[in-house]
Every structure is written in C-alpha cells, then in structure tokens.
C-alpha cells in the first residue's frame, strides 16, 4: 500500500525527467514497437531486442529508427543459458539500462503502435522499474484491435502473420524485431487509412 507515497519524493534518473516533461505537448508522431523477449512473463522474462520505426505524416521514416540487441548477461547467467546468439549478432549491442534509456529518449511523447502492444509495454515497464523509473505514459494502439474493430470481430485474435496475409504484405523469411516492426508499420498505415484515423 501507500507505495505511491514512497515514490512521491523519489528522485528519478535525469532521462526519465526529460521524458516526463515531453508530455506537456501532444505528439503527431507514431512509433511502431516490436520486442523480442525470452518468454511471456513480464516479471521473470527480459527483452532481448527492440525494433522500432517512426511514422510521420502517414509515411514510415526509415532513418528515424531504433534497433538494439540487449545483452542480458545476468538473465542468461541466472538461468544457465548461453547468450552466444546475442553476442554473435551484427546488431548494435547494449546493456539493458543503456538500451532502455536510449529507447525512452527515442520514443518521447509519441503514440506507440504495436501488435499486441500491451505486452511490449508491460515488458518495457518491467525494465523501467529495474531502473527506478515510473511506467510509460504514452498512448498505445494495437493493430490487432484496429483490425478487429474494422471487421467487427470480437471473439478472435490475429497473429502478425495472419494480418500480413489478410492485407497482402509479403512475408519475408527473415525474422527479427525490426522486421516485425516494419510489417506492423505497414499494417498500421493500411489500417489507419481504412479506419479513417487522422
């Protein structure tokens, strides 16, 4: 109980204060997020990589992106797993604190977009908690929810692959957080125009 009281005078890291201050203005920038995780439990599992793109004026800005592989030494050590596949990756490698910090700076006050985005947000929140930060304040849109709203379907969830097939997006054989984020971004553009969201 009264946890929030404890937090009221808590000193947050600087990057978090900057992040909070960004929300004084409303953003027209969307950020598509996709994370790869070690499992489905936000309390125990960790983020392994993040792929993310910005959408401005109905177009994906390829250059405005964030991609990173998180070197979860502690997690792998605790669980007795090998993290070689992460070390061997050619992507930019960061420790979790640094990656989350950069990611928070990247998203700013943008609206987050993702496929089953609640889970991604939960994972990021768990990582933020480890850094003594609060929870994400961004609005978040889920493309699966958008799709179901468009077709008035309530009793079913759709995987990213199913959505790609439904909207004619070529499925590539390469699989990564960035790849998923790009597909999600295309789906978002298509759904956005169909739903008439400005």
């Amino acid at each position, binding site marked *: 109980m009264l946890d929030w009281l404890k937090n009221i005078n808590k000193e947050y890291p600087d990057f978090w204060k900057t992040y909070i201050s960004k929300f004084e203005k409303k953003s027209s920038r969307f950020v598509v997020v996709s994370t790869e995780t070690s499992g489905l439990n936000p309390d125990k599992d960790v983020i392994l990589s993040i792929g993310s793109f910005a959408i401005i004026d109905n177009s994906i800005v390829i250059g405005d992106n964030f991609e990173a592989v998180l070197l979860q030494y502690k997690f792998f050590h605790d669980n007795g797993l090998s993290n070689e596949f992460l070390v061997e990756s050619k992507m930019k490698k960061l420790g979790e604190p640094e990656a989350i910090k950069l990611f928070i700076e990247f998203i700013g006050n943008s609206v987050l977009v993702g496929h089953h985005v609640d889970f991604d947000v939960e994972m990021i929140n768990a990582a933020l908690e480890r850094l003594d930060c609060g929870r994400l304040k961004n609005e978040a849109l889920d493309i699966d929810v958008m799709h179901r709203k468009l077709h008035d379907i309530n009793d079913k969830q759709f995987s990213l692959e199913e959505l790609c097939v439904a909207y004619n997006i070529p499925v590539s054989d390469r699989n990564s957080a*960035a790849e998923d984020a790009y597909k999600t971004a295309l789906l978002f553009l298509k759904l956005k125009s169909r739903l008439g969201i400005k």
Partner: protein
Amino acid sequence: MNTIAEHIADFLKEYSPFNHLSFEELSEIATNIRVVNLEKNKILFQVNDLLHDSFYVVASGTINLSVIADAEETLLNKCFAGDIFGLRPFFAKNNYMMTAKAREESIVYAIPISTFRPFVANNSEVLNFLLESFAVNTRNPKDKENLIGKLISDNVFYSDQQSEMQYFQSLVYNTTPLKTNVTAIIKDVAQLMTESLKNNIVVCDNNIPLGIITDTDMRSKIATGRYPVTVSVDKIMSSPVITVVENVSLAEAQLLMLKHNVTHLCVTQDGTDKSEVKGIISEHDLIVAQANNPGVLIKEIKRCQSPKELKQIRDRLTDLIQTSISKNIPLSHVFNIASEINLAIIKRSVELSILDLGSPPARFAWLSIGSQGRKEQLLLTDQDSILIFEDVAADKYRDVKDYFLKLGKKTTATLEKIGYELCPNGHMGSNMLWCKSLTDWTKQYDSWMNTPGENSNDLSSIFFDYEITFGEQKIEDAIGNVVFKNVKNNTLFFDFLGNDALRKNSPLTFFKKFNVEEEGPNKDKFDIKTRALMPLIDGARLFTLNFDIRGINNTFQRFKQLSIIDPKHAEIYLNCAEAFLTLSKFRTLEGLKNDNSGQFINLEELSKIDREKLKNALLPMRELEELIKSKFQLTQFS
C-alpha cells in the same frame, strides 16, 4: 545499423538507375527513405500540385500516371514494382504536370531529392539515365525494352494522340545519299544505284544539289526509249530538287511530298538548293517513322530472332489496338489486323523452333484453336493449339511423334515468353493428347462427333474453331472434310453443342440487373466472357456447322454470313453480330485498362450510358437462344 534500410537497398539494387550504385551508397539512400502506403485510387500528386521534395519508386502495387485534358483522364503509363516516377523536381521548378494515382493498394518509397542529388552528380551513368528518361517526351513503344528499368518520362504527352504526336517527331533519314555529277553516264549511275540498293541518286555540283534521279526517271525516260543509256545524267534528272532543312517533321515532309508530287526530298544545310546536301528523305522513311503500322510490324516479325524481340512487337500491337479503339476504327477491322499479326508471331515462333530443332521428319500442320482460331484475339489471352502430322510408317512413328512433341514444347514455351499464357486445360500442341497423326485426329473427331457425351470430358467446343498457322494446308482441309462429313444429319452432335451453348448462366437477372459474381476474387464484377461472349460464340459456331459454312471462323463474320444464308432470321443474326462487337469492345477496353484478359468487368467504373449500352448488347442473346431451342431438338442431354 538499420535492418530495414538494408532490405530496401537489396530491393533497389535490382533496378536502374540504382544498379549503378554501391550497396553502401544504397544503404545510405535507403536510410533516408520514407515508406508511403497508398490505398486504392489514392492520389499521390496531381497536375499543378506543388513539387514534392522527393521522387518515388514503386515497392509494390501499381501506380497510374495520367493527365486530364478536356475533362477526360488519359492514362500515360503504369508503374510497377521497381519503376521510378515523379522525377520532375530534379529538373524543373514548375508544378507537376501529371497525376499519379494508385491503381491498387500500393506501397511506394519516397526518396528525398536532396539525398539523391549528390549521387547523381557523382555518377554520370545515373545522371544520364535520369536525363534520358526525362528528355524523352513521347513514349516510343519501340524503345520500351531499351529503356532499362522502364523509366517513365515526366513530361506531358497524350497517349491517345500518340500517333499524331509522332507526326511532329523529327525523321530519321539517309544521311549519306549517293551523289554523282552532271557529266556522269546514265548506265554507270544505274549500275551504282543497283549495287548500293538505292532507288535514288543526287546530282551535285560541289555538293550543291542540281537534280535527282530516281527509279521513276529511269522507267519513264530510259526504259521508254526516249534517251539511250549512254547520255549524261543531266538529260534525265528531275530538277530542281525539292529541298528541306534538317530536323524536318514527319508531317511537314509528308505535306511537301504531296504538294510537289515527289517521292524524295533533299535535305540541305539551310534548306535551299544553294547549300550543301545533307541527306535524302524517301517515302520509305516516312513509313518507318510510323512505327506502329501493321505492315511494318509483320515485316519485323519475320526478321525476329528471339522471343524477346517478338515480345516487343506484341507490346507494340497492344498499343496499336489501344489507339485504334480510341480512334473508333471499326472493331471488325482491328480484329483482322490483330489476328494477322498474332498469326505472324505464332508462325515465327514455330519457325524459330524448327530452326533450333532441325527440319521436321514429316509434313505437319500447326493449328491455332479457340480465340486465335476465330481471329478474335486482341488481348494477351491464353494460347490454344493443336499439332497434326501426316501418317508415317509404324517403325518411324515414335521418333516422329517425339520430334513434334519437342517442337510443340519449344513453341509453346516461346509463346509463353512473348506473353501468351499456357492454356490451363492443356489444349496445346505440346500436350501428348493434342499432338497426333492425321489418322488419330480423324478418329478423334469421329468419336467426338458421333458419340458426344460419352467421353465428353476432353471435348471442348474450341476444337471446332481452328485456323492453320503453319505447315501443310492439305492437312487442315482433311480435318475440315472429316468435320463436315460427320455433321450431316448428326442430330445427336447438334443436340450436344446446343445444350452446351445454352448451359451458360444468363447475364441478366429476372429484374434485368447484371448477374455479377457472388464470391471469389472477382466478387461484384460481371463475367463478360462466360456470360455474354461465349453464348454468342457458341451459337455462331453451332449454326455455321449446321448450315455447312466452311472457312469462316470469326464470330462476327459467321453471323453476317448466316444472315445471308438464312434470311428468315437475318435480323437476329445481324443483331448478334453487332452485340458481339460491342461486347468485345467492352472486354478489350477493360483488359487494356487492367493488363489482363478483361474477363471481368468492373461495373462500378462504367458510366451510366455505358452500362445501358452493355445491357442492350445482351438482349439479342435471348432471341438467339430461342432460335437454338426451336431449331434443334435438345432432348438427349438436357
């Protein structure tokens, strides 16, 4: 590190001009790209819009480029994956001069000009590519293939006036004409002309043209005996010559020739006959300049060495058909021209296969069946053909059949490369079943016609529309004899065909609405091929066989002929003939618009008047059906 940027660079490097750049450069460009999704019919930019800060590459889908003139939208070009458009901001400061609209849901990459400009400046090949494509202001279909990557010009040209535009192109002409001087002897000059295969020679004094001698002069002044061959050329030359400046347009040249009633024009430095000769324009040059002339196309087909060349010509035929229709040239005439060119293409394909395989071991005939057999193929539909070879000794049969199967496979493969899809039912000369000896074919037709329905699975009525494309005419005649011998008093066969013709669903519902597709990818579209054209085609075939009319395969002409032979029902036949043309036109326009076979008409895109026109064209079908029912007792199979 940006994974997606690398994927995009991977995509771009397949296309011009990006293939001139290194992967690192492409990655850098890709990093600055914006990806835009365009829903169907979304306009990216339109005439008079301010220039965007980027140009575009199609990633997927189709973008139509068009101009709007006199309230009519004219399609200039279609851009497919890898095509570049919207280059105007590179070279010009004024607003867009065309409209870019998504024909289907599409994704395009927007490449910022500021990012790309340094690469253009540093790489002359890229610059040239962009300049060239921007400078081309008419779409010369001849060059379509040569323009690597099919880059699309950004200047305005009207495709429906394309052939008129050609008139204002400057001509390509002979810039090294034969020359001689006034003292030369006619006999020597004639020898010189013969050797160099020219029909004209300019008589000059220090390169100043004094006169010209053409074949006409030789005929009218020498062959008639008016002058001996030993006099000097000045006696017979036509003088003065009609001179023009360089860069004369086709239209101007044609006018001058008509005005002065000459066949050659002399090009001089300043356009008068007091300056140096630069070249000779002959009537032939004018013909060649009109590249889409059907005669020229056929001539070129005969010279083609590869499927690729033939494909270019087939593309030009599409343009020819499109302009012909937009100029309201009677469709029956267009049918004729198109079928002659198609025929020549198939013939050449067979020839190419023979050149490759060596001469055939027996005489044979390659028959086109189906739409090409009826000479009704305007669009690139699928290919149907059969191969009949003469009977050979039993011990040779295997080798012979083997050769012809190979020939069939090669030819159909060539045709597929040209753009004629393989027949989904396998009705092709490459199929074991449809590549047989004359005896086997005779048996086949006998069994089809005398016991229809028994093994009707492989009987398709298209086998009764055949046209010889290549080979021995006698073989076709033999098959014709078999067919017409079997037709006599064969009620069973007519019963079968009649039922086949009537089995198609009616095009209009009880409430006189169009019967549209209820499901599938073509939902809510009207299937003009099965519901409207096929009944007419089947009906026409049925009656021509019944009235023993031979040698006429075209549905339109069949109806015309029927109205003469069976005057009692002439009105019905003539209505059907007209209806057939109208329906074909609808189908062709739809096909040209969408680059497909035009089988499904999107009714929503038709104007109200067009819809009524289409509906009216469906009415004569009823009368034809009634006629079939009353004429043939359709009992056995119904």
